[in-house]
């Protein structure tokens, strides 16, 4: 399998930097022609990251696996249209983001289980209580809850930038939103995260 692993360039160093998978361009070219082995390599390379993004992005994290599958199906159908000048993983996460946004809209429309918080104007996601949809540990649960309190449109940009490592100029190309607005969204997402996590810690104390 022609997959290289490299350190992602992030806006700030972390103790355990995220790993980026860079696929050989020939693998993508072969997948464009319908080569199922090449497509399998793509799925293997990005499945984990897509799942991570979907679980954080979806209002119902239980749908993450389905949404990742839907994304790869769309990707495989659309591969002949992929333009090599575009970064492959930007394109993949663009499709994934669209799928997640559609799923969130449908979830919001059809569910009556979400409760609205009048004070902050954000929605809580009760399904986070499902242990299969979250990582182990109390801290992990606090982070998930705090992230769920970030509005969708800010959460997506925050995840793309800080978790998936896309620079702002790339996200601007992906979303069509100006960099200044993107930075503002990330800043607001960080503010909500910090406030929620600080609140959770003081409650624990």
């Amino acid at each position, binding site marked *: 399998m022609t997959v290289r692993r490299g350190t992602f360039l992030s806006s700030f160093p972390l103790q355990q930097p995220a790993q980026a998978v860079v696929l050989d361009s020939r693998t993508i070219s072969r997948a464009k022609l319908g080569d*199922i082995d090449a497509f399998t390599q793509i799925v293997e390379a990005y499945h984990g990251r897509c799942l991570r993004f979907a679980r954080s992005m979806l209002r119902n994290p239980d749908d993450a696996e389905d949404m990742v599958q839907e994304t790869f199906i769309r990707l495989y*159908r*659309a591969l002949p*249209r992929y333009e090599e000048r575009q970064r492959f993983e930007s394109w993949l996460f*663009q499709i994934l983001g669209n799928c997640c946004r559609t799923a969130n809209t449908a979830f919001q429309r059809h569910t009556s289980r979400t409760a609205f918080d009048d004070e902050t104007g954000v929605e809580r996601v009760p399904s986070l209580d499902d242990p299969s949809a979250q990582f182990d540990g109390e801290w992990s649960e606090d*982070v998930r809850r705090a992230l769920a309190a970030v509005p969708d449109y800010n959460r997506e940009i925050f995840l793309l930038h800080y978790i998936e490592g896309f620079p702002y100029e790339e996200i601007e190309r992906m979303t069509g939103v100006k960099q200044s607005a993107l930075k503002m969204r990330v800043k607001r997402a960080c503010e909500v995260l910090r406030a929620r996590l600080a609140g959770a810690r003081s409650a624990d104390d």
Partner: protein
Amino acid sequence: MTDARRDPLVRRAIEELRKVPPVDASATQRIVAAAAAARLVPSDDEPPVLGPPRRRPLRVWSMVGLAAAAAFVGFVVRGAWSSNQSVTSDTAVRTIASTPAPLIRAAATNERESMPIPQQFVFNNGSAHRVAVVGDFNRWNPASTPMTRSPDGQLWSVTVPVAPGRHTYGYMVDDTLLVLDPRSPKARDPDLGVDASVVIVGRP
């Protein structure tokens, strides 16, 4: 201002969120199998196009049934309303016979209008070795519709039956490069974030 670089709480949260969840190998295989199967059948949002038009006899028959039912109801109502009047069998036959005709004609017209129309695609590229037209009408499959080179070697062309309506397409050059048609308007697929040429296929 909350700055992630200076805020240890947010930094820790980011580190937590960056953990990649474990992936089940069987889940990966399921995805690959589902994608391979999905590429063989058109999705709901892709118009089925190439090949003979889909026959829908049920639609015509349902129209006939609807018309017959309407005629029957009309016959009964008319009979009740003018019970004292004599309704000849000739009138009843005329009522039933005349009602479904426009509906049948409309159904037949719809059927005719949805039939694929031969559409010629022409692409100018003298240096290409292989060119195929790809679009929503052939599921963007480069192997589906190869184009034929003209004797002078400059033009590539192919004529394919395409259902009436708006379609997006492009030219796949040498199996690797998707080129848009410079003579056609282009549109961005909002779902996939890629450009495609647009053609409107319709009857004159």
